[in-house]
């Protein structure tokens, strides 16, 4: 008992120090959002002397933030929902099949993780416009689903391999069809991985810049990273103070998503061990 408390106290200290080191850069991101440009460049490390809110006002004025937010929200949430649906099913089936076809299929999907995106970009843009999917939110959602699913399939594949097949066997014996078996028995068991996948994909898609950059030119369909990037990395003007501020504004909703969902990973864990 005593050894256990010492161990947990030690872990608290060690991991606490590491965690603090980890967020130092974030600290600088936050404090610099409250400074004028000159201070951002020269006194980067200094704590803001006054409560300077002009950056937030300027970002709000210079970009149509609510519209950008709505676009980002729609694109991210639709894509993630589709990714989870498609990849959990495919990952499960592939992990439970042992034939050559299944093995080849998983290798086929892995190609996605290997190929640098830049090398398919130009042909992809061409294709998307031929399919009338360029410059459209639905188009980009479909594309995200196609491009991001392989990674999630692979993650689900690994997770399913860790689950004993005896559960579904008994369900099948009870007469449940494969789809019902999957959604009522397997999918719930995969919830830690689902939370992980939802979190990771949400973050990536929310922050993704390149795909919207090359596929969306209509100002009314732009996402947050796209709509605010010119503030940060201009050709002639670098308004770092505004860039940092817009990033902070874009990051806060993601932080909430992470903190909310992260709990479910942990809950899944503790409940799992209680069950054991």
């Amino acid at each position, binding site marked *: 008992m005593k050894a256990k408390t010492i161990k947990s106290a030690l872990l608290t200290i060690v991991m606490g120090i590491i965690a603090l080191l980890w967020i130092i850069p974030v600290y600088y991101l936050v404090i610099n959002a409250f400074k*004028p*440009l*000159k201070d951002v*460049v*020269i006194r980067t490390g200094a704590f803001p002397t006054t409560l300077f809110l002009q950056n937030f006002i300027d970002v709000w004025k210079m970009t149509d933030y609510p*519209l950008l937010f*709505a*676009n980002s*929200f*729609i694109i991210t*949430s*639709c894509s*993630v*929902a589709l990714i*989870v*649906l498609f990849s959990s099913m495919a990952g499960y089936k592939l992990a439970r099949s042992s034939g050559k076809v299944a093995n080849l299929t998983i290798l086929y999907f892995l190609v996605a993780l290997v190929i640098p995106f830049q090398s398919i*970009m*130009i*042909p992809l*843009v*061409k294709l*998307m*416009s031929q399919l009338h999917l*360029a*410059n*459209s*939110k*639905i188009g980009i*959602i479909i594309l995200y689903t196609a491009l991001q699913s392989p990674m999630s399939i692979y993650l689900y594949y690994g997770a399913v391999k860790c689950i004993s097949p005896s559960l579904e066997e008994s369900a099948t014996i009870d007469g449940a069809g494969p789809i019902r078996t999957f959604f009522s028995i397997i*999918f*719930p*068991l995969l*919830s830690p991985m*689902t*939370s992980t996948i*939802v979190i990771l994909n949400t973050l990536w898609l929310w922050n993704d810049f390149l795909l919207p*950059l*090359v*596929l969306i*030119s209509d*100002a*009314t*369909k732009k996402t947050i990273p796209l709509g605010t*990037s*010119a503030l*940060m*990395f*201009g*050709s*002639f*003007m*670098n*308004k*770092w103070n505004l860039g940092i501020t817009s990033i902070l504004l874009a990051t806060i909703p993601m932080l909430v998503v992470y903190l909310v969902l992260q709990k*479910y990973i942990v*809950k*899944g864990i503790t*409940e*799992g061990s209680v*069950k054991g």
Partner: protein
Amino acid sequence: MKKTSKLIAAILMVVMLFSMVACSPAAPAAEEPAATTEAAVTPEPAAEPMEFDMIYTKDDIATPMAEMVAAFQAENPNITAKVEVLGANSDQVIQSRDAAGDLPDVFPVYNIGAGGLDSWIKAGKIQDISSLKAFQALPQTEKDQVTGADGKAYSLVLSTTAFPVLYNKDLFAKAGITAVPRTFDEMKVVCEKLKAAGITPFGVGAKDGWTVSNQIWRAGLDYAFPKQWNADRYAGKASFMDYGKDIFPYLDLVLANSNTKVLDTDYMTQLALMAEGKVAMLNQGPWAYTNIMGMSPEMKDTFGAFPIPFGNTASRNKMYTQQELAFVVSSKANLEAVDAFFSFMVTGNGKDIFGKGFNVQNPYGIAIAGNPVLTDIQSYIDKGEYMFDFQDNNRSTDFFMVDWTLMQEYIGGKKTQDQVLVAMDKAWDEAQAKMK
């Protein structure tokens, strides 16, 4: 366990439902504003409705450009103008919009490279603009500069920019310097005086390689290399060794009299040094002044500009200028609308916004307002002591990265002067070989 899964399932359901609901009605809703503005600008049935879209990268004129577009729309309610500013990734945007068959009607020539212009012409993707009213309004010398042997012109230059030395007048006065240095030896004296007064002469931000390669090396090429050299180099008869050594004395002088750790100093920090009054001079252009004003607006009359004194013959040290706002036109169908907009900007009622808002050196004789750096630059241009950059127009496209990286290696002590020049020759040949 069950609880968790139910919760997650519930969240997923909500997200999916939400997204499905959001997907369908939100799309038309988002398009509404565009629709209403279009409706608002077409009340006159008499004029034929026209449109064009344009992108530009000079983001420091974003606010006056918006004003310009609004003023143009008010005067020409039948023309829908979609003008958009792009950040540093404009290359990729232009390329992917081309791939999607959705090339903007007007886009900046700066981003498609010098050699690149040829392939756009060959591909038949850009139009002859010599019939545009804005082009017709140019002085003959400017027209000649962009007109090819076949009498066609493809790029419309609205403004030029310069590569001078920016200086802090107050610090010069403090160090007892009464006139700007026009020769290399005078510059040496200026550096000594500034140091004696406890002022660091130069701010250098070599972490962003272009601040050295564009602002010193390229201007240096214009200074040191005769016009014929470029053609000779393409013919394999010339070398960077021929004149390259003439640029290094000035470069070395700057580096010897600069802030510390120049390779750890980026462009913005370089500007901040100037904005704080910590250094007296920068090798930067008018855009730097605009950025510095974003940091220290109270110093608006503190700065001036003079030509880079590479050598000891004052008349050879010229103001180096380069095209800045330059566009190509891809659409034949919308050429008329483009023509209307450009002539509005440079000869019509937009002239005022162009002069006061854009505040750029231009070939149309539109006056510049209240910018001491531009006023100084203009004074040299008026005296004829300037040189329009020719090296840049005639160099293979991939070369700008080469001098950028080599300058950093030179500053870091990885390469000697000779090695830099040899490497430039080698890179030039390699670029030629790659094209074959």
